[in-house]
Structures are given as C-alpha cells and as structure tokens.
C-alpha cells in the first residue's frame, strides 16, 4: 500500500494536550475531535489539512495522556500517516490498535520540511521525499504488530 501527500511538520515532544486539548474530551465523536486537532500549536491545521496528507515530527511524538482521542483526531482529520523520530509509548500503542499508520524514521523526520510532498510505501518502509528527491528507510514493525495493522486494528485482529 502506498500513500502520497503534503507534509505538516512539527518539532519535538508534540503532546496529546496539543493534539486534542482536554477541553474537548467531553465528547468521543470522531468528527468533533478532528475539528480541534492541533489547534493550540497550529490553529490553521484543520483549515489546511487535506485527505491523504502526512504529519511529520521529531522526538517523543504523542507524549502525555493515554487519550485515544489523539490518534482518532489525527486520523479523522485526513492524515494518512505520521512519521516521527520516536513516538511516546502509549501513542505508539494506540496508533497501532486503532490502525493509524505510523512510522519511526529519524532521518526522514529531520530532513523533511513542512509543505514537502512525500510518498510512503508501507510494504517496504521506503519514504520518498518527492520535493527534495531524497529517500529514507523506516524501521520495520515486528510481525506481531504487522498482523494487528493488517487486520485493521487490535479488536479486528482479536476477532480473526
């Protein structure tokens, strides 16, 4: 599977409070959550994001709360994949469990700029920066996690 989109770029320690502020956690409605995604650090994100875009950030993406509302808000906003140098562990788990594609790749995270057009091949883990003409190789997932993602999330994998 391949995705290709425009990049929205952020820095280190993007926390779950800025991905989806707790003041909006009085709802579990996916569209309502997506309407406030990233608003405290990037008020224009919701306006600018298009279906299939890519989010790129640096160290410790998704640190903080266990709220699954965070990967839900990102996914429902239209983001097709998040690339980061490292992910905070609960966000990493939640993304896999809810089938939000994520990739750990420090080289890509450091080199890619906001607005770059990036293509991701999930089968090979190859990330191609079409704007800069660079390619990067992401860390592959262990087979156990690949199976969860292939099934469409944890609950689907439990059922199958």
């Amino acid at each position, binding site marked *: 599977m391949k995705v290709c989109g425009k990049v929205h770029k952020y820095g280190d320690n993007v926390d779950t409070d800025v991905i989806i502020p707790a003041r909006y*956690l*009085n709802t579990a409605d996916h569209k309502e959550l997506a309407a406030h995604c990233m608003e405290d650090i990037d008020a224009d994100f919701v306006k600018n994001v298009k279906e299939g875009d890519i989010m790129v950030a640096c160290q410790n993406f998704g640190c903080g709360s*266990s*709220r699954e509302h965070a990967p839900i808000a990102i996914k429902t906003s239209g983001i097709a994949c998040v690339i980061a140098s*490292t992910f*905070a562990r609960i966000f990493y788990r939640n993304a896999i469990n809810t089938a939000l594609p994520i990739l750990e790749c420090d080289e890509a995270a450091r080199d890619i700029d906001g607005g770059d057009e990036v293509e991701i091949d999930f089968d090979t883990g190859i990330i191609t920066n079409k704007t800069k003409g660079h390619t990067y190789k992401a860390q592959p997932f262990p087979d156990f996690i690949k199976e969860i993602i292939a099934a469409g999330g*944890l609950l689907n994998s439990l059922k199958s």
Partner: protein
Amino acid sequence: MGMTMTQKILAAHAGLDSVEAGQLIKCKLDMVLGNDVTTPVAINEFEKAGFSKVFDKEKISMVMDHFTPNKDIKSAANAFQCRTFAGKYDIKHYYDVGDMGIEHALLPEKGIVAAGDCVIGADSHTCTYGALGAFSTGVGSTDMCAGMATGEAWFKVPSAIKFNLMGSLGEYVMGKDVILHIIGMIGVDGALYKSMEFSGEGLAALSMDDRLSMANMAIEAGAKNGIFAVDDITRDYMKGRVNREYKVYEADPDAQYDAVYDIDLSAVKPTVSFPHLPENTRAEGDFGDVAIDQVVIGSCTNGRLEDMAMAAKILDGRHIAKGVRCIVIPATQQVYLDCVKLGYAETFIKAGCAVSTPTCGPCLGGHMGILAKGERAVATTNRNFVGRMGHPESEVYLASPAVAAASAVTGRITSPNEIM
C-alpha cells in the same frame, strides 16, 4: 540472565519462566481500569466488536473522576454511558460521585491493586501503582476494551533504568521534588519505553504517599512503568486494605539495567518545572520572581493525606496573597473526610482557599479552575504542556504541595524554606 522486577512480574503473568527486553508477550491482567473520558470510547469499541460479556466483573474498575461532578451535558452523557454499562455487566469497582476519588489515589487506598499485580488502565498515570510493587501501565481505550473482553494485553518487555536511592529528604522536600529532579535530569523521553526501578536504602525514608507521587510521574519521563522495591512500609500500607494474597517480586541481583543513577535524597531541593515541559526544572534559589494568579493543590500526583497535611502546615495561621486563587482538592472521599476531621479543611478555608470535592478537574483543563489568557498557576499536578490548564497562552508551574502552599501565601513562586 537475571530479570528486573518488572520483567519478573511480566514473565509470571505470561506463564513464562523468563523474558528478556524487547520480547513481545501476552499477559493475564489482574485489573483493567478506565475513567469517564476513556471508558466511553472503550464501550463504543466493545459494542461495535460485538462482545457480550466481560472477562471478570471483579477485575474491572471504572472511576468517574475527570469531568465529575459533571460539568456539562456532554460529560454527563459520558458518565451516563459508563454507569449504564457498569450496571449491565455488574462491574464491582464502579465509583461515581459520592464515593469516587481520583482513580490513582482511590485504587491503592481501597486495596484494589496490590504488589505483584499486572494492571492496565486507560489513563496514562496508571503507572502510579508501581509504588506498591505492581507492574502497572497506561494504555488507550482499545486496549481497555480488549482487556475487559479477554483479560489479556500484549506488551513489549521493557528494559530498565535503576534509581538507587540513598539518604533522606529535607523537612519541606517531598517525593514530588525527587521525581521532578529526576525528570529534569533525564528528560521527558529519558526513560522512553523503559521501566524506572526505584530501590536502595533511601526507600526507608520515603512514605507511601511520596512513592505514589513519584511512580505517578514515571510517564512524564516517557517510561512504561515506575516500580518500587517492596519493603515493610509497602506491606504496612497494604495491610487492612488488600483482602487477598499478593506476591512480592524482587529484581535478580544480576538483572541488567540500561543505566543506574544514584540519587541522594538529602541533596534534593524544592524543585519546580517551568513551562511547558516537566523537564524544565529549576531548584530552590533559581525560581526568580514569577508572580502567579492561581494555585492548585490536589490531583492523582499530590492529592493524598500527606500532601494535604503539608499544605495545611504551611497555610496554618496564614492567608492566601491578595489576587491569588487557591484551589485545594483532596483526591478521595477518605482524604476529604480526614481533612475535615484533622482540621485541615478549616485551615484551608480560613486561609482563603476553595476546597472541592474530588475531581481531576483543573489538572487537565477540564473544569474547576481554568486559566485565562496570560495567567500563571503553580500546581501540584503532573503536566505543564501548552494549554494544559486552560488558555494556550496560560502557564503551569509544577511543584510539591509545600512549594504550592508557600507560593499561594506570597503570590509568587516561593520555596517553603523562605516562609517557614
């Protein structure tokens, strides 16, 4: 090869003789926890997946603590959904307004979690129960849902960092100062994916309330869990609370650690995390002149009785500075009742504090003390991210109850040593 405390608990719950860091395993769970924010998402998934029963109605806890007593119609609908589900499946440990407390203060207090347990909770501060010698970690709602249905969860076995504690704390220095000091030292991702294991002769000088607030903030260093070696202080705390057998695990003498830090408790000073990351710590003497608008004393980090006692000691006979709002939130009904009985509640009220029923409320910017644009708060909570307690341009300074109470009196960030 020897195993860490965490690895031993995980191996036992996976039915394996041994495990090693990086191994993917499936563990049996002793407790699955959720709150009024995360449980509705888990219930939606539970129903969507077509599950018709829970694995064990006695091993699930639901605590309505974040937006309760409900602040608006949407949060009331969420609590209603949890209440209905808990009723339908006869969930034993369901706690609502009137008997609830902040989940991570409530579960240890009621003896629902114990040493040697394997616990997941759909709340990042579930790592708190490591103070009891349990493996306990935060997960999301989908994991909670799978846990409720199957009684199992998958884990990648973590490696560990060991903190060898020695010495004892100064008079107005608390467990909170120690954990802020450690996070300042290793950073907010300093223990990413790892266990933080606390042991050493300095343990003897740390009360359970100190340990609970330290294990609570392991997640703020990125850790999977924080865990304390079990000693007589732990056993005394569990006595009369835990009405079942529990198992004490010890790290092997030849356990492997990614790093070992010696922490001299007597050298730790009152410490404050400046905005907007818990790692931005400054010790007493470097606070500068930071005027504040609000103080919050409470939360799953610092809403226990010793926290209240420390705040009361400092506020006794004093008054909150003009222009400062001080909100005190005992973390459970029992702590609240003890505050009334011991006279702390009267001390707080005479000092000009608002005293609230238990709630997570202001810690996450939910309700009960939201900050306006440009306002600053000193809080005994656990996160000071952008917008955490209100407006994105407000600021949160994390501190111990001693520093928070002293700051409430002066109206600026203040070490208790300055006024006591």
